[in-house]
């Protein structure tokens, strides 16, 4: 019952925050958001699951199944549970939301209660996305995440916030619809072999090869079409090149805490869904089209990094670098090895923490200097030593310095990708080598930006004082940094449960 309790509590907390007076909303929302944090940490401490929640032989933790309603002979249930893939993301969601709420205290200065209410409402739906095991339930949470995000960008964003909000909404909503059609076609194509939308049932039926024909499409065509529709739908969310263009707009316009949630958790919805749907349910299609998917991944890595290199706005740099980092996740997924898929899952968490840290640090600097342009700033290290230190540490994490989460994740992914045999003749190694070149570019643009903004003489001309950030701005950064280092030093704290859940996914794929 703990999953239900967490989701329900967060919904109620959202309502409470919404009616709190503005001056109390920030503190109140933070205190309320600690309950899900404690809850998810408790879940972690009690976690007892093996295997993959969707595949035969998997044991799911905290599972609940309650029949809900029937449509045309299909059973829809309230079906939630976590396995080694979803639990790290649940923990990431609760921790990052709490920290994002604290980081919103300074920049959000109007309509606070609505802002914090929406943040908590989004958290509740995100928890739903990562725990739901019934397609219908999952889709409701998946779509419901869009609504608070739309408002958060549209109301509290920068000058072009309306454009960015609409673009985000239209892009991701249209993508969801296409994905929805793809999945529905699969379920209908399965005919009588499943009588529910429960993801485990569908996954097992698909893996057992029970797909039939549907409206004149034979099973193998249907498989590919559905895979393509779902892949497209999730790729927009990830996002991968060339459907990434909503992301920089949304990031640049969104206020800092919203960017943190967007990069830290929302993008993971896309890769999580790719893993759960495309790569778990239709592995043979993924393997068949592996060169194509790997090419998209490499393109995202390199092109995203090149775009980041060309930016002048610190926030845009971090935003485009997300495209690049998420490309690694795709590469890890398509490798279909324990290290590849496990590393991809690990990278979801690592990137959530690191990008959250980077966005928050940029936000803290912006709160003080009111500019994000690399060219305008110089010598911030003298004025904001603590923030600077953390920002540099975060950048090192991004570049993949050992003993930080990013290094562990990328190391797993590259190891897995080199071992991979999805492409004959170890072809994936070539893609991987190309993708690794991205690391060099990442180091390039991050060092370049750091050097220009943080060091040298201070020369920002302002009529306000530029000094150290308040404690409540710095503290979330420190917490994130601790998490990043902890995951880097001891990746085992997540990685063993991840491999437990990942092994069944790759089992039997390449035989």
């Amino acid at each position, binding site marked *: 019952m703990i999953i239900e309790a967490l989701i329900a509590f967060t919904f109620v907390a959202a309502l409470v925050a*919404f009616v709190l007076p503005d001056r109390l909303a920030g503190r109140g929302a933070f205190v309320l958001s600690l309950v899900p944090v404690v809850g998810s940490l408790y879940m972690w401490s009690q976690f007892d699951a093996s295997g993959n929640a969707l595949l035969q032989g998997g044991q799911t933790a905290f599972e609940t199944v309650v029949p809900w309603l029937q449509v045309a002979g299909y059973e829809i249930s309230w079906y939630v549970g976590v396995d080694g893939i979803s639990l790290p993301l649940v923990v990431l969601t609760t921790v990052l939301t709490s920290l994002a709420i604290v980081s919103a205290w300074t920049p959000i200065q109007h309509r606070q209660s609505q802002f914090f209410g929406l943040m908590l409402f989004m958290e509740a739906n995100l928890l739903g996305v990562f725990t739901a095991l019934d397609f219908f339930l999952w889709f409701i949470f998946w779509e419901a995440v*869009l609504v608070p995000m739309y408002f958060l960008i549209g*109301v509290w964003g920068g000058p072009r916030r309306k454009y960015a909000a609409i673009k985000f*909404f239209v892009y991701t909503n249209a993508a969801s*619809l296409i994905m929805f059609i793809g999945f529905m076609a699969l379920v*209908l194509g399965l005919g009588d072999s499943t009588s529910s939308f429960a993801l485990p049932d569908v996954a097992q039926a698909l893996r057992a090869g029970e797909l039939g024909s549907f409206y004149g499409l034979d099973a193998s065509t249907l498989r590919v079409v559905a895979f393509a529709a779902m892949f497209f739908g999730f790729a927009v969310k990830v996002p991968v090149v060339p459907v990434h263009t909503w992301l920089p707009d949304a990031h640049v316009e969104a206020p800092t805490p919203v960017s943190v949630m967007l990069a830290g958790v929302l993008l993971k919805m896309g890769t999580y869904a790719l893993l759960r749907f495309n790569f778990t349910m239709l592995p043979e299609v993924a393997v068949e089209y592996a060169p194509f998917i790997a090419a998209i991944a490499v393109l995202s890595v390199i092109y995203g990094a090149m775009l980041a290199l060309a930016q002048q706005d610190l926030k845009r740099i971090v935003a485009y670098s997300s495209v690049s980092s998420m490309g690694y996740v795709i590469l890890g997924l398509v490798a279909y090895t324990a290290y590849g898929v496990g590393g991809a899952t690990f990278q979801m968490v690592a990137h959530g923490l690191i990008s959250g840290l980077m966005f928050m640090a940029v936000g803290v600097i912006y709160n003080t200097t009111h500019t994000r342009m690399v060219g305008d700033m110089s010598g911030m290290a003298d004025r904001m030593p603590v923030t600077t230190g953390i920002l540099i540490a975060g950048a090192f994490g991004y570049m993949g310095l050992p003993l930080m989460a990013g290094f562990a994740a990328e190391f797993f992914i590259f190891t897995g990708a080199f071992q991979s045999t999805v492409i004959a003749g170890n072809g994936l190694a070539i893609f991987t080598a190309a993708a690794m070149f991205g690391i060099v570019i990442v180091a390039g643009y991050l060092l370049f930006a750091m050097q220009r903004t943080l060091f040298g003489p201070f020369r920002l001309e302002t009529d306000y004082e530029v000094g150290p950030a308040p404690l409540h701005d710095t503290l979330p950064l420190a917490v994130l940094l601790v998490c990043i280092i902890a995951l880097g030093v001891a990746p085992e704290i997540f990685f063993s449960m991840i491999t437990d859940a990942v092994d069944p996914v790759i089992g039997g794929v390449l035989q």
Partner: protein
Amino acid sequence: MTAPAALTALASPLQMGQLPEWAALAPVLILAVTGLVLLLIDSIDADTTNSALLAGVSTLGAAAALAATAWSLATGVGQDNGAISLFADALVVDGMSLFFTAIFTSVVVMVTIASYDYLRDHKHQGEFYSLVLFAASGMALMASANSLATVLVSLELASLPSYVLVAYLKDNRGSVEAGLKYFLIGALSAAVFTFGVSLVYAATGSLIFADVAEALSGGEFVGLAGLGMLMVLGGFAFKTASVPFHFWAPEAYEGAPAPVSAFLSSASKAAGFAVAFRVFVEAFPLATVPEGINWVLAFQILAVATMTLGNFAAATQENVKRMLAYSSIGHAGYALIGLAALSAGGSANGNVLGASMAHLFVYGFMNTGAFLFIAMVERWGIGRTFEDYNGLATQAPVACVAMSVFMFSLAGLPPFGGFFSKYFLFFEAIENGFWWLAAVGALNSVLSLFYYSRVVRAMWFEDPSGSLDLGSQPVGLYAAVMIAAVGTLLLLPGFAPVIETAQTVAGTLFA
């Protein structure tokens, strides 16, 4: 319907023979008697402006009717093929009539609560409430009509008060003009409908649905009957505001007092569908209707034209009330799928029709709520265009949350009731072999998000253009809007009983 286990203990005294059969008409009788009581109050004190008394009595009456309906549905009155026929088969009480009566009475409850504030400064309030209740009893009778003659009489009983209600603001030119237009087109369509009925009578020699169906299967006077059916269909197209008889709707809804618009666009439209469903399924059953009469094709054309035209016209409006009026035409198009996706001997006929009924049920809440929100805005004295709604959320956040719920629900976005009802409608249409109807519906839904989100954007994203001074907080309107919003939200977790009831009662029509 299989009554929930807890309710089987509540066996209906009606079925145990303790009450006369006409007691099954209790909901209609309660509505009509309440209307008479209001007239009585009005004749005792002709100038009464005691809104609390009048609104209270009407709300109580409508709530009692709703309770009687819900109780009848729960205890299984007239269900399980035990339809209660009354007055020489002219009326019938079965699950379907009760289901629709539940829609009408819920809408009336919300409308009467809201009218308490809306009418506060107006004269002739007693008449207003009694007319609403008489119209509602006409609608409830329409749902029970089992003979073309009762259809005709109850249709007029519902229509005549509606004409007056539209013109209720008699000092307002728009209102009077709208009333006149509505009346003229209504009279014309009533004439067409009556002529159609007489042609059907000429061809079959009967007005009772079952007898008409039997005579039709004989195959005599096919041309005459076909022409009659086409004219009957025209009458329904008027009542449900379907293309090509939709022109009155935007005018009437815009000119009418907003609570009346809410009443007409939700309840009156549902009533039109109630009769259309019964007449075409029972009197002109597909299985036995002679070849050459293909009314399903007519409804397919009607459905596609109605939803497309309604949505495109709504997208071009500058006035929120007109936008809603056109969008309600679009929704008539979705509801028409209930008849357009039928096929002789189709396996899911009952499910499609039931899904359409469930959509009308959800629509009763979300559309009424949207119009009542507009009533509230009118009460505040704010203009009617999208610009006038700018920044409204800064002044009335709770009401704006409710309105956003209605808009997203109407657009069919999870997690609101409208998502489910649309989803079921499209899914059942696909199951019954009409994937293209579902595709047109889904495309239209995507388009509708554009104009629904305009309202949301105006309320939340834009800054107020002038000073927004809302003055008093209308309690009744707030309460009604909140009831509708809570209804729209609760219809998601509570959708199982609605859809199951609707599909069961619709299924008995095809049994």
